[in-house]
């Protein structure tokens, strides 16, 4: 894979990640779990919260490598 193509893939992937994590119709309080009758309404929100940190880790861990691993899988 040439440098240029690899860079293109990286940039469009970053663009996609930004788009998919920050935009799109967004539902509030979508998951309700109860523990001892206490409503943990914002588990939905927490899902959003953790997903971004994972994205950051993914990004730091050589995006391109993850990409080519996925293609090979």
């Amino acid at each position: 894979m040439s440098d240029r193509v690899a860079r293109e893939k990286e940039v469009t992937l970053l663009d996609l990640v930004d788009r998919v994590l920050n935009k799109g119709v967004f539902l509030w309080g979508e998951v309700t779990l109860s523990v001892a009758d206490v409503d943990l309404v914002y588990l939905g929100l927490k899902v959003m919260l953790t997903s971004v940190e994972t994205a950051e880790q993914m990004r730091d861990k050589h995006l391109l490598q993850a990409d080519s691993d996925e293609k090979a899988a």
Partner: protein
Amino acid sequence: MSSIDLLTEEKLLCASDDDLSAFAAELEQTAKCLPKRINTDPEGVEQGLAKLVLTLIEFIRRLMERQAVRRMDAGSLSDEEIERLGQTFMKLDIRMAELKEAFGLKDEDLNLALGPLGDLM
């Protein structure tokens, strides 16, 4: 809608630059700055919370500072008020710098530009 060929793997329509690394760098920067997101993984909790709290404080501080500066500019503050406000904001500035340094956060890490609130800045 017959646009099957439009939705493909090829997402780069046009770039004016042969070297896309500048874009990659900026996109990574924007991805970092999400103060409303907190890391619920225990190790990262403090850092995530610090980011959120400091972002909010910075936001309010800058807003208030801006208010004061504008009133000074408009001539609606007395000399004494100007001096007192200035001293207060200066101390706040130093304090915030210390806090940011303590958590290893820079201004770029606390994104104060995103969203509709950004317009208030």
